[in-house]
């Protein structure tokens, strides 16, 4: 069991890193009071997912997904799929990064607006202010 | 060729080491900037040079020369920006009211900082 567990961890530590990062991000989003902290947590969560996707793309013994100069498809050399890393998750994650930066922008804008309204970024203080009103 | 590359790279890493240790060990902000600004820039320059050399030496073609030039371009860029960044940080520190370190007040920032 121990050996199995270890080999499992050894072969999948990257995914475990993803899980840990997700936990960090989620914890920040749930437990932190500060809005900017929450936003950071949100970003960490998103990057963790991106990391997960990119990890699925990894391929042992393959190179980056840009065809070498010699290869041109219909030429003398045939391209083998095993030579190149899977490009599809990269594409997806480009989109996801863009989405995350867009979300970040909107979230920060909202946070600035909230700050202008309440004079604080702490959620419990805001809640207290609302209760007193 | 490879030896030259290795030598340069090792020197670069040596500078980096100095920078890292300096950043870690120096007592205050201004003094830490010193290794950060100087040694890192130097280390980067050396390492970049080594790698540019390696790339050019690997196979001498237009593409590889271009790549080597690009690597050197990075080091040029770093050469310009790194001091500016250091300057900006120093400026920020001065404006923020950081007192330069003197031997007597070593521990002052510990409790003030974050």
């Amino acid at each position, binding site marked *: 069991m121990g050996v199995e567990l270890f080999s499992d961890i050894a072969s999948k530590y990257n995914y475990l890193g993803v899980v*840990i*990062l997700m936990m*960090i991000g989620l914890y920040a989003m749930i437990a*932190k009071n500060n809005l*900017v902290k929450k936003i950071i947590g949100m970003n960490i969560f998103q990057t963790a997912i991106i990391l997960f996707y*990119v990890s699925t793309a*990894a391929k042992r013994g393959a190179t980056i997904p840009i065809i070498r100069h010699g290869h041109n498809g219909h030429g003398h050399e045939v391209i083998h799929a095993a030579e190149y*890393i899977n490009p599809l998750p990269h594409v997806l994650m480009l989109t996801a990064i863009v989405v995350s930066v867009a979300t970040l922008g909107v979230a*920060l804008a909202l946070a*600035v607006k909230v700050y202008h309204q309440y004079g604080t970024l702490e959620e419990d203080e805001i809640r207290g202010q609302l209760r007193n009103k | 060729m490879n030896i030259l590359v290795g030598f340069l790279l090792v020197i670069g890493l040596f500078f980096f080491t100095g920078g890292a240790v300096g950043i870690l060990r120096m007592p205050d902000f201004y003094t830490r900037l010193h290794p950060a600004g100087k040694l890192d820039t130097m280390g980067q320059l050396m390492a970049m040079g080594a790698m540019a050399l390696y790339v050019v030496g690997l196979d001498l073609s237009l593409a590889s020369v271009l790549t080597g030039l690009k690597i050197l371009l990075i080091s040029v860029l770093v050469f310009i920006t790194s001091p500016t960044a250091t300057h900006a940080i120093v400026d920020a520190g001065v404006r923020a009211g950081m007192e330069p370190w003197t031997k007597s007040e070593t521990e002052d920032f510990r409790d003030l900082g974050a």
Partner: protein
Amino acid sequence: MIWELDFIILTLVIFSGIAAITVKDLLSAAILFGAYSFMMCLLWAIMGAVDVAFTEATVGAGVSTVFFVAAVFHTTRDSKD
């Protein structure tokens, strides 16, 4: 994929992530988040995802840090947790 580097950087990423959410100063958090992004970018370069690394380098390290600083500039650096 270069697993040795990957392992080290992943650890560093986790630490800087934890640091970014625990530090009590929002500007520091923003800067640490920048560091987190740097290393994330490195991680992706290590895994061979060059385009993703490029994007992360431009977005995570550059623009989003600037956004964070701008937002902190207009709000407060103060944070209770």
